[in-house]
């Protein structure tokens, strides 16, 4: 930072012994969402089988939050329902193959539980039913003891084949459907194909279980968490929706797009890509308007370098005290640090094992435990640059986790059942039809919670 302006970034190489300082007249934050903040459903080898890539650890949020930028929708996590365990996509089955999801008795819970949707009007009564409400009805089925939940792939294929009487045509059609079904996985979630093969599942013969994954933080694809960025000049209704440059955060010269910019859930791949183009163009305009090179203080660089490389120094200093390189009272390794964070988030902040339910009392307890983690983060240790990367990934996760808990506490209602449910505030309230924003002050270290009005653009 140069005063109130973001003027670059710092980092290190995992290949060579190099520390990097990037000087910039404008910075665009596009480092994706966050995985492994909540305890995953599989904790052995399957730990890595997250729905979103495990190498996205909340760097986007950390970067904007620590710069002092205002953040939005940090309470909104995304819980995708996917084919169980391998998290294969369900979209093609629902939309292309018109498959139905049912409980173990074969009942379509979207029909049998339709009345529940009225409690969440106008969202619940609109078409298509929002993702979180579809999740919610499914969770209710599971709580009623009606699991497992199945994607009826076999019935869908049967239905698609129903009108074909010619034997040759039927054979051709079946081959085409089979190819489409497998390609869906082989193109993007190969482990789901392996999961079918390892269980001898042929989708035209056997239905497959689906389930809710653990929560993730993304701004695209039905998530919403990210930085509060300036809207486009031509569409924004007022100054608090637009401040000079499209997609600029509340920090001068710091832009965000994709999963880094919040409150724009309906961008998916192409939307995030286009938002990146819009943000990059605005950043260029900022550079042209602010051509003076930024000042970077050498003392600050020295301080950053020391802080960033500290886990290596901590390990060197204490490694000979114990015979086990991972168990040593003087430090904590990044893996156990991550597991501690995941346990806290799962049990107190409404993870998968508690069916995404939480309350003020639980959240406050979780926040208390995160304070210990913040203190212990000073004692993270790394034996090499790979572990140094893991240390910083987990510090990023910790900050994403804290802003999540604080914003869930702030919003005293339940607006996204199926993503999370506040048992102490189980309904949606009119007064909370607003954005819940937060900001961390780099000078004082204080958090500020901000309620922002929703202004309709259309």
């Amino acid at each position, binding site marked *: 930072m140069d005063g109130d302006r973001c003027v670059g970034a710092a980092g290190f190489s995992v290949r060579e012994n190099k520390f990097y300082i990037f000087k910039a007249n404008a910075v665009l934050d596009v480092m994706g969402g966050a995985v492994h903040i909540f305890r995953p459903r599989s904790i052995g*080898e*399957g*730990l*890595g089988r997250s729905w979103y*890539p495990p190498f996205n650890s909340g760097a986007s949020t950390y970067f904007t939050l620590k710069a002092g930028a205002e953040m939005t929708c940090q309470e909104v996590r995304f819980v995708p329902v996917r084919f169980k365990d*391998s998290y294969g996509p369900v979209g093609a089955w629902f939309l292309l193959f018109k498959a139905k999801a049912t409980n173990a008795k074969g009942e379509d819970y979207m029909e049998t539980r339709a009345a529940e949707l009225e409690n969440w009007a106008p969202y619940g009564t609109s078409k298509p039913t929002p993702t979180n409400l579809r999740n919610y009805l499914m969770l209710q089925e599971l709580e009623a003891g009606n699991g497992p939940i199945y994607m009826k792939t076999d019935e869908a294929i049967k239905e698609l084949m129903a009108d074909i009487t010619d034997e040759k045509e039927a054979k051709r059609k079946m081959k085409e459907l089979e190819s489409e079904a497998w390609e869906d996985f082989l193109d993007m979630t190969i482990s789901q194909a*392996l999961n079918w093969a*390892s269980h001898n599942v042929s989708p035209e013969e056997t239905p497959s279980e689906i389930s809710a994954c653990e929560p993730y933080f993304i701004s695209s694809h039905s998530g919403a968490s990210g930085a509060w960025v300036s809207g486009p000049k031509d569409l924004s209704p007022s100054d608090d929706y637009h401040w000079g440059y499209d997609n600029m955060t509340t920090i001068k010269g710091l832009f965000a797009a994709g999963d880094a910019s919040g409150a724009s859930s309906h961008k998916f791949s192409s939307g995030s890509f286009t938002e990146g183009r819009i943000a990059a163009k605005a950043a260029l305009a900022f550079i042209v308007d602010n051509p003076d090179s930024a000042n970077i203080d050498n003392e600050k660089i020295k301080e950053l370098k020391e802080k960033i490389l500290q886990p290596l120094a901590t390990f060197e200093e204490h490694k000979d005290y114990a015979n086990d390189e991972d168990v040593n009272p003087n430090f904590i390794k990044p893996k156990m640090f991550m597991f501690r964070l995941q346990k806290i988030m799962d049990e107190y902040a409404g993870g998968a094992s508690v069916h995404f339910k939480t309350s003020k009392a639980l959240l406050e307890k979780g926040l208390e435990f995160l304070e210990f983690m913040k203190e212990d983060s000073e004692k993270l240790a790394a034996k090499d640059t790979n572990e140094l990367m893991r240390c910083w990934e987990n510090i990023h996760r910790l900050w994403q986790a804290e802003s999540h808990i604080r914003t869930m506490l702030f919003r005293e209602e339940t607006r996204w059942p199926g993503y999370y449910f506040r048992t102490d505030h189980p309904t949606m309230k009119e007064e909370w039809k607003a954005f819940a924003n937060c900001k961390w002050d780099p000078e004082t270290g204080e958090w500020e919670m901000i309620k922002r009005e929703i202004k309709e653009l259309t």
Partner: protein
Amino acid sequence: MPSFVISEKCDGCKALDKTACQYICPNDLMVLDKIKNKAYNRAVDMCWECYSCVKICPTQAIEIRGYADFMPLGAVVQPLRSTDSIMWSVKFRNKKIKRFKFPIRTTPEGSIDPKSGMETGTDDLKSPLLRTEPDSLGTDLFEK
């Protein structure tokens, strides 16, 4: 689903300055054991099954063994890439085999014109229009 390296097939990419799998892994998992001169996956529980290492390995020494905490043993899903398509072999636990071939691109490499013959709408950096817009929007809905 973790990747593993078949010892016999891996030559440590000795002709290259770093192994192909080290180069391609998005999570910094593949490392070269300099004594054995073989690559290995150092943290299988952080592996996303993206198959990048499997696809890039010049000696086809890398395969995937399904996450053992929920997949029964015995299945293999293996790709073979060509310049324009990918061939997948899916071997089931019960030995059944399925093969699928999908295109991976429909145009020759390097042949795409970024502007696709469309006009640059404006040189104004402050305009919300992106390169080739409004031409590429295919609609006059946004024109004022």
